[in-house]
């Protein structure tokens, strides 16, 4: 695998697409070594394309840029197929800059106001705060890759949604077909379960235009797929549910024997991206459960994962709440490298599944949690897609919402499960997850996409059916310079394991 900026990418043999190994350009901002939850899905996707006989060029951003975000995990690279070429663009999120010497005086005087203005400005080239201004670089990047070695298929993984502009550009100029992996979806706010923007908005026009010609649209669960099938009936048959799944190397081979004498250990592993009140409710319930249940009197609760970004990285309100809960046996251990995930799980007796959102959020960690065979305490909305996945799991305490009293009961129940469960039940619990290995899920998804691609190529279909329903996104119907600014949108929330595995 090569990691290089676009302009210095190593020269490749300009094999024609026909006859040689087909060439995929994969827009995957968050690809390893980014310590993002989406990295696992991206890694597996790229690997599966290589397995399917494709050459893969991943386009992402420079690894240093992730230092501002959720950091870098070099161990994620270990499982990346070395045949994959990676193009790293010198792009970084400007809002997360922490070097004050790079600030102009206006930013130094009012950091938050400056970032708010920046986000408005960034939506002008493409309607997405934080990322919109990357449009030109991404477009040039995919065109550059195509010039060096013709591209047969583009797969855009979102977020960021500005990837759609690059996919569209390559289609528009070179007629390279593309598919979209939305993971969570753009026009649905998966956290609140409502439409995120209207069809007439600039985002709406972009989404519609790009999806109309997409070879396939992948999303992570059925409710999101249903949203897209309803919104765009014409592409309903191209919408596929590609669940996140789990990596088998991330789960322990066997469940450790719980030892209440030395203290049960509960654990949470994942990005700490839920509201502070949510975390407080869980910790209050934990404290109450320790007071109520003798099995938990000396129990510990370990939290591992990323907290905050930019200037707040590792030091935000959540970090303080966790620090204050140390007297209750709570410990924040920081992020866990992918390579140590199985070891981390192996040291725990039960898991706490803290998730935001509801029926449109599944998360990736639910699959991994299931595969550990450990008891699972659910700390999320009752009507949550993770509940659907967990239904039937023998060591699940059940969905009780984010009610402190009910969660207290769940902790007590899980403590008993951890101590009283026999090996056979743990095995049964692990088996519940068998169907969700990431490799199995992604093999099917990639095969299906490749078949669709090949079928279309054989028939000469290019999906150019029907007249365009409106102006090009960002062009005629977009606000003219000087007209009212496009409506600023708050940054779309991402869900650890939901927007990404």
């Amino acid at each position, binding site marked *: 695998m090569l990691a290089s900026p676009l302009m210095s990418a190593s020269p490749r043999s300009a094999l024609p697409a026909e006859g040689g190994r087909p060439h995929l350009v994969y827009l995957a901002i968050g690809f390893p070594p980014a310590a993002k939850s989406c990295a696992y899905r991206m890694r597996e996707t790229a690997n599966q394309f290589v397995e399917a006989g494709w050459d893969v060029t991943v386009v992402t951003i420079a690894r240093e840029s992730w230092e501002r975000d959720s950091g870098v995990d070099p161990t994620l690279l270990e499982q990346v197929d070395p045949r994959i070429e990676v193009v790293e663009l010198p792009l970084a999120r400007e809002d997360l800059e922490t*070097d*004050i010497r790079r600030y102009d005086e206006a930013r*130094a*005087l009012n*950091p938050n106001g400056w970032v708010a203005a920046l986000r408005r400005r960034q939506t002008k080239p493409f309607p997405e705060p934080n990322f919109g201004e990357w449009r030109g670089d991404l477009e040039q990047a995919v065109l550059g890759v195509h010039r060096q070695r013709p591209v047969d298929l583009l797969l855009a993984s979102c977020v960021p949604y500005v990837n759609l502009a690059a996919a569209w550009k390559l289609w528009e100029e070179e007629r390279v077909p593309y598919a979209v992996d939305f993971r969570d979806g753009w026009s649905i706010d998966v956290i609140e*379960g*409502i439409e995120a923007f209207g069809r007439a908005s600039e985002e709406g026009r972009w989404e519609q235009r790009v999806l109309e010609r997409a070879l396939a649209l992948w999303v992570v669960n059925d409710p999101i797929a249903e949203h897209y099938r309803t919104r765009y009936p014409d592409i309903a048959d191209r919408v596929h549910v590609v669940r996140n799944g789990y990596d088998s190397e991330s789960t322990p081979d066997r469940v450790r024997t719980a030892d209440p004498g030395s203290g049960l250990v509960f654990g949470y592993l994942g990005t700490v991206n839920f509201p502070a009140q949510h975390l407080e409710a869980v910790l209050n319930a934990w404290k109450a459960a320790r007071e109520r249940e003798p099995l938990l009197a000396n129990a510990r609760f370990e939290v591992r994962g990323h907290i905050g970004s930019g*200037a707040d990285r590792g*030091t935000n309100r959540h970090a303080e709440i966790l620090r204050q809960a140390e007297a209750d046996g709570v410990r924040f251990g920081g992020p866990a490298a992918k390579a140590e995930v199985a070891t981390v799980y192996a040291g725990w007796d039960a898991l706490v599944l803290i998730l935001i959102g509801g029926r449109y959020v599944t998360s990736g960690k639910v699959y991994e949690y299931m595969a550990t065979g450990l008891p699972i305490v659910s700390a999320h909305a009752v009507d949550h897609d993770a509940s659907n996945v967990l239904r039937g799991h023998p060591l699940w305490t059940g969905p009780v919402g984010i009610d402190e009293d009910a969660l207290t009961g769940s902790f007590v129940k899980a403590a008993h499960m951890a101590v009283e469960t026999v090996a056979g039940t743990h095995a049964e619990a692990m088996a519940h997850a068998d169907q969700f290995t990431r490799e199995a899920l992604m093999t099917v998804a990639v095969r299906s996409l490749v078949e669709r691609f090949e079928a279309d190529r054989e028939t000469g279909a290019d999906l150019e059916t029907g007249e365009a329903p409106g102006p090009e996104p960002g062009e005629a119907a977009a606000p003219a310079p000087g007209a009212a600014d496009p409506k600023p949108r*708050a940054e779309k929330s991402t869900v650890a394991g939901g927007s990404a595995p």
Partner: protein
Amino acid sequence: MTEVLLIAAAKPQLGVLADSVRRFNSHGARVRLAGTFHLESSSEEIAALDLTELHQLPRSLTHRSQALRRKARTSTVGMRVWLQARRNPWLRSHARGADVLVALDPGAVYTVWRLSQYNRSAEALFGLTPALKAVERLGARGVAARRPVLPPLGALARDVRRSVDGLPAALLRTATARPVMRSTVGARLWRGAVTAPGLPTRVRTVTARYVAEGMQWAGRTSGAAMVLADAASRTRDPALRAQLLDEGATKELSNGVAPRHLDRALAALLSHADGEFAAGRPGTAAAALDRALVLAFHRVLHIDQLSSPLAVDAEGFVAPLHGAETMRELSRGQGRRTPPERAPGHRPLRLLVTTSANDNFLHHVLEHFGNHPDVELRYLDLAASKHLKRIAWAGRRMLEDRLSGGTSDFQEEVERLMRPYLDWADTVFLDWSVGPAPILTTIDPGTTRIVVRLHSYEAFTRWPHMTDFSRVDDLVFVAPHVRDLVTSLVPQLRGGQAPRTHILDNAMDLTAFARPKPAEARFDLGLIGVGQVAKDPRWAVDVLERVRRHDDRYRLVMVGGDMDAKTSRATREYRRAFEKEIAALSESGAVVRRGPTDDVPSELAGIGTILSSSVREGCHVGLMEGAASGAVPVVRDWPFYAGKPNGARTLYPEDWVVGSPEEAAERVLQTTATEEAWREAGKLAAEHALSVWDWSVVSRQFDKLLLEGDRDAPAQAPTEKKSAR
């Protein structure tokens, strides 16, 4: 040794900071913390940090020049922190010697930015994690020995340039300093300067603003407003005129006083709005109209005072508003394309109950209809969703939409977010006729019946004037006098498209209040709820003092949270006077403050007489609950409504209501003269309350409105509703 200087404008997360300091130290760094926040208030936690040194930076600009303080008042937090800290020798010295300068919060960023100009080799970072990485980096490559050097010439040159650029402002602030503006001669001189003929508009405006600022600093708030009004009168630009008058009025309102030139400010804003509207600029027209409405219905005028222009002449007050073309456009009912449909007979009524955060009066309603076999209930708190919250109070966007004939993107957003709920519901019951009411009526409700409840507070806000009542089917009031007031204020409620109106009492389960009272309760006068100026507890104190002249066993028991002095200056001033008045009474035990409680029935068990001392109420829930508990009600004839066709005298039995503190004292003394008389009066009050206001009675009114009322609606054939998510 790496030298780290942390700078904080706000109290940092001390637990996280402690961990970070340990990590800095483990990398061989020496960590110093300088803060403009109050270090002493967290001294124990801060002492536990393993810091090399701690330094309190100036927490304010007290003792600095007034020109500087005035500049700080109009500056960003970052600039204020820098102005406080920049002369501090400790800071300057340690900043020059630091290897890593760290801002712990946004307010400290500018100070670090400025300090980094003087220490070009130091890292300047925002946040602890980047700072830790820098220390690791420096530790790995080793820190070069540093010796103090003079600041770079470039930094000094930039400082000089800043000083020169700021000179006109500094000069004007010095020339309009407090001593000058406090003197009548100085103030008059400056007013004259602002109105001097021949001044270019820009100069006049800038000068007027500095003079107004100086006057405000000198305590001449109304003088400040007059200067701005003078400048406004000399400009022909309608936008600037409106802006200056608005600024003057806002200065007075923020000082808790009714603006002297409110009429002129409103006229200028409305005229500007009308001009922009006529010119086809709905955005600026909406902005001006919004300001006019905000000023006209500011809480200082109507809520934080013991009276309001609406109490004196409601129709007269709103007449100029509704005379504006933009307001006429706003008041033009858009109507609904189809009448509301009846719920299909084969399934329960789909009822959506909604509000924005305040569900105080919905608990019984939700419980009742949640268990009703003929109702499928959903509850929507608009404040619980970030998307809905963003539109629920978006008054200006709503105005722009109306003035642009529904062509703004706002309508699309409301449509997208609210339509799924309208598609599902047969009937929407919106509690509180505030922001969400105009927003909901921005779109056609389709076949859904819209019911809105207006309590009392809303009458004194701008929201009913912005609501399109032609899209509301039923408007529910909690009392006739509120209906009278609102109808007199809002032209749409008097026209052909007005909704049906109803009077429904608040939902209260009064049976829980019937508890035995001890004999000593006879001498305890109770006041439930004292958190607003309108409750006027000073009136109750007056009554107390009068009855204590006859018998010093009488006490005043106040239940509920105190007024929040931060609400407004007017509230702060009322509270200050009130506190002064009850200081001695509290000390002697004649006034007892029980504070907030979740258990009002228990508190009322010890109260013998329940007072309503308010200047206005919709229906006084605390009073009704007190009556239900068997306390003897004594109700002030609420001055806002006294003498009008409806008010306290028509809402309550005549003998409960008194016209003055004297009459109140007389009624207290009379009804509590003997234990027997007191218990008998209390029993009659409880019987009345339970027979009229208890939920067992009122729930039938709600059933009639929401279930039978549905059958009364125009006979539109029902169609199948869509399912909302």
